[in-house]
């Protein structure tokens, strides 16, 4: 394989790897705040893309994306208010089943609203055919939007959790819910916020990938599986771990295509996952503490 081809595969892998990463970050935010694995995360991505595609018919693109992110965040908050908040001492299993139920509900609602067709947003810059050459590698400008959005999301989340009061409160809530509540932190409100934030990030990802891979009502399921894989691989709750793991998985998939038939892509990726997890049960970058699936207090 020439260097140029290798780089082309690398770019392909980084592109979908970063989408996996953004979905995984959504998992992590909710997990950190509540201990819940929210399997409706993929549906938030779908809702973001679908809403933006509809809004973009009447609004300029930036407003359509902003509107879709806001609307999906509201849906995320509603999901928490309607299905999670009123539970007193729910078991982890029950929460997982509830989020799977919510995922099905959102998917069917999207089918009823938008129908079964595929939609897409226009390219944020350039068109379907435009690409620029980096060395010998040709990259669609939209790929840079995807990579850039992922990087910006991770950086902003880092600032939020590291340098704002609200971020500290959410981390306190994650570390020990009871102690946080004793300190006067409104833990329940923060849980709602975490769902809204995860939904907003998912929706943003749904918007930036829409021109590349299209949006359809059923896209959430596959994304949730990949995103969950990446979240586990990176260490549950660890967002920079999720980014690294997402990129690793994406590149692994892409390089496997270069060597073997495409059909083995997921086999290679999942074998790598099993291998890594058997060596490091808490994921590539996870601490033992964070990986312990605890009953939410």
């Amino acid at each position: 394989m020439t260097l140029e081809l290798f780089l082309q595969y690398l770019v392909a892998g980084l592109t979908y790897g970063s989408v996996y990463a953004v979905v995984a970050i959504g998992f992590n935010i909710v997990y950190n705040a509540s201990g819940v694995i929210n399997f409706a995360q993929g549906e938030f991505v779908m809702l973001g893309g679908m809403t933006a595609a509809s809004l973009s018919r009447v609004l300029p693109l930036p407003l359509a994306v902003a509107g879709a992110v806001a609307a999906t965040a509201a849906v995320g908050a509603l999901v928490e208010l309607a299905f999670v908040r009123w539970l007193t001492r729910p078991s982890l299993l029950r929460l997982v089943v509830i989020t799977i139920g919510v995922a099905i509900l959102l998917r069917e609602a999207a089918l009823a609203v938008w129908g079964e067709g595929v939609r897409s947003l226009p390219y944020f810059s350039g068109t379907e055919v435009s690409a620029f050459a980096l060395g010998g590698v040709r990259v669609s400008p939209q790929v840079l939007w995807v990579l850039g959005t992922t990087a910006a999301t991770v950086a902003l989340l880092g600032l939020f959790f590291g340098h704002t009061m609200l971020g500290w409160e959410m981390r306190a809530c994650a570390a020990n819910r009871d102690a946080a509540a004793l300190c006067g932190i409104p833990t329940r409100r923060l849980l709602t916020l975490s769902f809204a934030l995860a939904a907003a990030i998912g929706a943003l990802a749904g918007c930036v990938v829409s021109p590349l891979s299209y949006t359809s009502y059923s896209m959430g399921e596959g994304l949730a599986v990949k995103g969950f894989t990446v979240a586990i691989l990176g260490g549950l709750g660890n967002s920079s771990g999720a980014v690294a793991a997402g990129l690793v998985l994406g590149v692994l998939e892409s390089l496997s295509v270069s060597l073997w038939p495409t059909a083995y892509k997921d086999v290679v990726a999942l074998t790598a996952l099993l291998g890594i997890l058997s060596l490091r049960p808490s994921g590539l970058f996870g601490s033992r503490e964070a990986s312990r699936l605890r009953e939410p207090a």
Partner: protein
Amino acid sequence: MTLVRTAAAAALLAFAPAAPAGDPIKVGALLAITGPASFLGAPEARTLAMVAEELNARGGVGGRRLELVVKDTGGSPEKAVSLARQLIEEEQVFAIIGPSTSGETLAVKSLAEEEGTLLLSLAAAEVIVNPVTPHVFKVAPQDRFAAEMIFRRMKAAGITRIGFLSSNTGFGKAGKEQVEKLAPGYGIELAVSEVYDKAATDLTAEVTKLRAAGVQAILNWSTEPAQAIVIKNARQMGMTVPIFQSHGFANVQYAAAAGAAADGVIFPASRLVVADSLPASDPQKAVLESYKKAYEARYREEVSTFGGHAWDALMILARAIEQGGADPARARSAIERIQGFVGTAGVFHFSPTDHNGLGLDAFELIAVKRGRFVPLGP
């Protein structure tokens, strides 16, 4: 007063079209209305509803009302089998239209034969009716015709080395089989042949592989959004080689989805997608235009050939019932005698050895020009 009313009612009745009497004829339909093949099943379901309504408004079929029992398979062969069982055993349908996809049809085929239920598949794979079995028919043209149309064109253009992509569905597998079998006969080598997942959202890596192999053209065989993604990925990567698609591309939604990248894509499809630009002398023109007009006025979306298959299936079944009577065995042999039936996919000539009834001329090569389909001509 009562007398006047009765007389008025009698007068009204005399002028109203004969209302369908007797028990309705139940026709089952197995369609992939949701799921990855929903762009097949959804227009098929809409078309069936429309055609059944029209037939009933005109007095039904053979004087009996037609009742549709539509089941959504979600594109899953397993679900199709259990729903087929339900249609046959619980609903006791007269015949089944569908399934939408080849994989589902092959799964249901043996059940239809065991139960002796007439099955009119809307899927493309040749193996559905080759070898012929008594109760299974199909109204979509053969994959083989599509592959041959494409290879003829490639040969004329001097293309000898191509990259082939297909999806891991019944449609993709059946197409792959035909393409691999027929390519050598046209002096065409498949330098790369890759199968991707039907839910694929990016095929840059696969396209990179084709580029590395230095192919002269790309041929893609699938029915999912991936077929539009292939085009975009190839063009973004700067590949300028011609791109050919299967007849699964015949949905203008996909050409629109690929935008500027789709320009110049060539694929075989039935004349329905270019009904407007057909010469008046074309035998199908009237049928195509009337179906297109009715569908588009009612559902506010463009017709696709797949909806057309549903039109063909129900109309052929109606013709068979009218000629053979509402008896499954007689209707079955009536289909085998149908000659020169003008449908949306072509002009059907069935026989006991041909349960598809279409020929190579069912397809026309079509090119994409600025998001529209235009006939490519000879």
